[in-house]
């Protein structure tokens, strides 16, 4: 069993493919009928492609939207039926939602790649592009829109609109704060709703989701993509492919969404009665329509997203007056790393 990976794996596709851990799936994929392949959009499939080959079948994901606590919104005199659509409106709401030991939101700055996901969703909501198209250049500071989004988002703590201690806040801490009514909104995926309701069942029926506030016309946020892949050492790839097909059948995509809060990545499930009858899930699916896929397609993305970008976010949170300088240093570091392939 030495050096023998499980046949079916769900990993960071590009990094794993580059490292030689995965088997290309094009032969299997192309042998399937059009009716099977049509269930995935090219946009979603592109997140599972690297170096011209397909390395996984997109199975499920998480769309980053803005989740609100209806009670806190109403207590602040705000209208839950008209959540903020722009950054300016969001700042107005944030001011109203912050008070004694309560904040509008939480910035994620802990050492996980969730920090990077939320940062990217803010950058995208300002029309920013922190990397060039072929992922050979980092532009966090070089792209004015990216830098503006970074300053706005990370500046929320200094303004008293985000919970203090952002450098220690990860998914767990963020959902704890939300479940305990200490923050009124959180940028998160549908699975966070299950976590919050598990922590505080009294919030059942009191949460609502909306588009992340935008600062540009074209909407964009982040959607994570988790794919089913076959390891390069698999001795039974045909059987593995058969299981991947089974695991990605429409009914299981719906079940994963309704039971586990994992967003479907097939494009033929939004009209399913179980999804259509759940307003919150339906909204997440709708937001997923304009989301950009994550992780980004680069072999070093796992390192970049978990180490380099998180380090820069933590430094910027600790020294807000040096944000631009810190992200310029990040660009320089990443430019070297992106081209070291």
């Amino acid at each position, binding site marked *: 069993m030495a050096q023998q990976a499980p046949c079916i794996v769900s990993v960071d596709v590009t*990094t*794993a493919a*580059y*490292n*030689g*851990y995965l088997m290309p799936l094009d032969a299997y994929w192309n042998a399937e009928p059009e009716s099977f392949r049509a269930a995935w959009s090219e946009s979603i499939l592109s997140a599972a492609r690297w170096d011209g080959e397909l390395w996984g079948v997109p199975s499920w994901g998480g769309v980053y939207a803005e989740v609100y606590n209806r009670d806190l919104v109403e207590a602040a005199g705000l209208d839950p039926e008209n959540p903020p659509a722009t950054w300016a409106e969001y700042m107005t709401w944030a001011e109203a939602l912050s008070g004694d*030991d309560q904040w509008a939101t939480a910035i994620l*700055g*802990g*050492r996980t790649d969730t920090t990077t996901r939320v940062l990217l969703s803010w950058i995208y909501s300002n029309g920013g592009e922190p990397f060039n198209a072929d992922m050979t250049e980092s532009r966090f500071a070089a792209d004015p829109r990216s830098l503006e989004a970074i300053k706005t988002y990370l500046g929320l703590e200094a303004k008293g609109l985000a*919970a*203090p*201690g*952002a*450098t*220690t806040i990860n998914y767990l*801490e963020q959902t*704890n*704060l939300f479940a*305990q009514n*200490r923050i009124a909104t959180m940028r998160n995926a549908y699975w966070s709703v299950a976590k919050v309701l598990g922590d505080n069942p009294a919030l059942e029926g009191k949460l609502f989701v909306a588009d992340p506030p935008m600062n540009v016309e074209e909407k964009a946020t982040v959607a994570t993509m988790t794919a089913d892949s076959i390891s*390069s050492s698999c001795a039974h790839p045909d059987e593995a492919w058969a299981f991947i097909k089974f695991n990605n059948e429409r009914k299981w995509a719906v079940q994963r969404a309704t039971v586990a809060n994992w967003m479907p990545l097939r494009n033929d499930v939004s009209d399913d009665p179980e999804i259509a009858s759940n307003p919150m899930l339906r909204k997440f699916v709708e937001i997923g329509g304009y989301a950009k896929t994550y992780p980004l397609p680069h*072999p*070093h993305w*796992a*390192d970049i997203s*978990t*180490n380099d970008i*998180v*380090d820069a976010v*933590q*430094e910027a*949170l*600790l020294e807000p007056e040096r944000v631009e300088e810190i992200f310029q240093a990040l660009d320089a570091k990443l430019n070297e790393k992106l081209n070291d392939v």
Partner: protein
Amino acid sequence: MAAGIRQKDSVAPRPGRAGGAVAWRGAGLRRERFHGYLFIAPAFLLLAAIILYPLIHAFQTSLHRTRGLRIDFIGLGNYEKILAEPAFWDSLAISFAFTGIAVALHVALGLALALLLNEVRFLKTAIRIAFLTPWMVAPAIGAIIWMWLLEPQFGVVNYVLRSAGLISEYKIWLGEPALAFGSIVAVDVWRGVPFIMLLMLAGLQGIPREQYEAAEIDGATRPQRFRYVTLPNLRYLLIVASTLDFINTIRHFDIIKVMTQGGPARATEVLPVLLYNRAFLANRFGEAAAIGVALLVIVLALTIVYILLTRPGRASES
């Protein structure tokens, strides 16, 4: 009669020996030695399998550029790279600062507690067990407990300190570099003091009462008795305990990994955490192995110091 038998046994010629002292330099001795090697062979093979082989493999890995299954020999390239990186030197400095402060506090507090416990006359066993509890808790579990105690919004530490009027606003214990460093040192001290305390207590109980009585008759005060009787008697034990504790603490990983993961902004990234992050977050196993070898060299140097300090001659002098 018995003495006679022993004498007879001790000089009786054995197979293969001509007899007398000269025989111990012959073929019989070589065979005896061979048998000796056979006896230690299983232990040696076991140690080689679980220590020597991984060490050689780690060194071999450190000479390669590894990207998953893509492995290229680059000689000392990884060493050149890590030694040129500020991250490595920062991490080394953090490791020595963390270890130095933690060991000093382990020894100082361990000795102080041992002195107190040595005076206890009632419930001795129960009190000793109570003091040993932090050492009995698995480090990762202790770290998780402390994470929640130090949590900024809901943690007990902030609540107690604010209720007592000692702080005006909640502290982000693990979110600011200086506080995070202080917090991991404090948790390591909480975990590490009991063992040193136990060693010191054993040492204190080995000091002859007569020495204290003689000092008292000579009019020595309590601090003088500590300075001129207790400390000289514990000197050897203090050197051994602090050296071993230094070697143990500089390799610490679990508490820091759980509590801060080396953050914020790498303020608590000691060498073992840098190694972990480089291997398992950055997928750069060659560089991680080079960091591991560097750490091994440091620990080996400390071990040599320890061996020199505890040589039989020096030990008996002490």
